[in-house]
């Protein structure tokens, strides 16, 4: 009996000490996984901060890393055009699709630089802090199911992370409230901040559509210039992974300034290398430039 008890105890300790290996196909997902997993997760980051996820394709080396992971975290909502291929080659059971748990919004499809009046789901869910809370819970459940020995730690870490997110949400709310509603207009290089706009009552005037691959037509740029002049918009924003050439042309013709760089498609470097840092940087940049 004593021997059996000892064996069970040792097994329990081994199970508790086990570390999950998780592959993340997105910088924000990697940060959430680190916060939820703590010491009981090893996160393999396949997309590095500052990389354009719209143009990412997994290399053979990446596929090897993914196949070694116990869980693969993907953004979903059309962010990964290669997802179906990956799923069919690795089996669907190991994939966690964050887009399945978030509250989505639609945005106008603008694939060819002009509006068709068609709508599609906006895949940039992480610009709503409440969505990040939902994904944190989803990841916590998946980690606990895959590695039940560390369930308590995952739950405690998630609780702490959600408290941080709530503080971040309040801070963002207070910062944005300093801007009169009439000044809450975001001219950005591409239409990635729809969730942010919905949460904080901004209107977005994007130069491109949802994807950075789309290029704006000259008529669209001209229309935008007229709107900026008409609404007396003080600043337009570039992104961390883009060439802001078109925005520079717009500023020349309208007199609006470049308000700073926003992290739209994922985390950046330095202070913006965590989700909290990225959000703080975006909010501070927007509020300061539009005031």
């Amino acid at each position: 009996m004593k021997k059996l008890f000892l064996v069970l105890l040792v097994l329990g300790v081994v199970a508790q000490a086990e570390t999950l290996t998780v592959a993340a196909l997105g910088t924000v997902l990697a940060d959430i996984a680190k916060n939820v997993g703590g010491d009981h997760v090893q996160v393999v980051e396949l997309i590095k901060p500052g990389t354009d996820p719209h143009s990412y394709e997994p290399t053979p080396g990446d596929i090897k890393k993914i196949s070694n992971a116990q869980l693969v975290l993907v953004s979903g909502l059309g962010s990964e055009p290669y997802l179906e291929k990956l799923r069919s080659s690795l089996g669907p059971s190991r994939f966690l699709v964050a887009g399945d748990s978030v509250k989505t919004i639609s945005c106008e499809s603008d694939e060819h630089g002009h509006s068709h009046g068609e709508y599609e789901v906006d895949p940039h869910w992480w610009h709503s802090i409440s969505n990040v809370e939902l994904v944190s819970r989803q990841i916590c459940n998946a980690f606990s199911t895959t590695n039940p020995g560390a369930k308590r730690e995952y739950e405690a870490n998630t609780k702490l992370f959600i408290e941080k997110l709530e503080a971040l949400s309040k801070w963002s709310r207070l910062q944005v409230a300093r801007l009169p509603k009439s000044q809450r207009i975001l001219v950005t290089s591409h239409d990635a901040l729809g969730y942010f706009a919905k949460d904080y009552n901004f209107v977005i005037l994007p130069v491109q559509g949802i994807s950075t691959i789309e290029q704006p037509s000259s008529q669209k740029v001209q229309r935008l210039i007229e709107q900026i002049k008409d609404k007396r918009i003080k600043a337009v924003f570039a992104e961390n992974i883009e060439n802001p050439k078109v925005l520079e042309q717009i500023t020349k013709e309208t007199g609006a300034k470049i308000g700073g760089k926003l992290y739209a498609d994922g985390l950046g470097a330095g202070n913006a290398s965590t989700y909290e840092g990225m959000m703080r940087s975006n909010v501070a940049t927007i509020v300061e430039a539009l005031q």
Partner: protein
Amino acid sequence: MHGFPLLRVLFLAGVLALMGLPVWKITRPAPVAPVGLTAEEKKPQSAFDITLTSSAPAKFSLLVGGKKAGATESMTTSWKISLPMDSEKPDDLIVHGEASPDTKNLALRIQVENNKKKLTDTTLWGTDSVEDVVAIPSL
């Protein structure tokens, strides 16, 4: 004509004036159009009546669109203020309440009305101070 230099001068001045007229027409400064009001400036304003009630005496302050809209000078448990704002898109209020440091629980109720119509009724909770954003729906 040869004998009247004055006439010659007058004639020359007339010719020059006639020649200069089209040049003046082209180069004269364009009349300045009166500056029209922008869409923002034309927006209808309406009075929003704001009532703050707290569970313990506190100093209150209100910010609207990043600007100080009002504050109490002394500790009180109730404060009313009326603010004119855009009726279509009223700005968010940043509400701050500061009670004495030994206060353990502070509840601050914020009610916003327009022409006796209730628009917002919310309560903020804290220890000795509270601060948050209160959104007002459009009329």
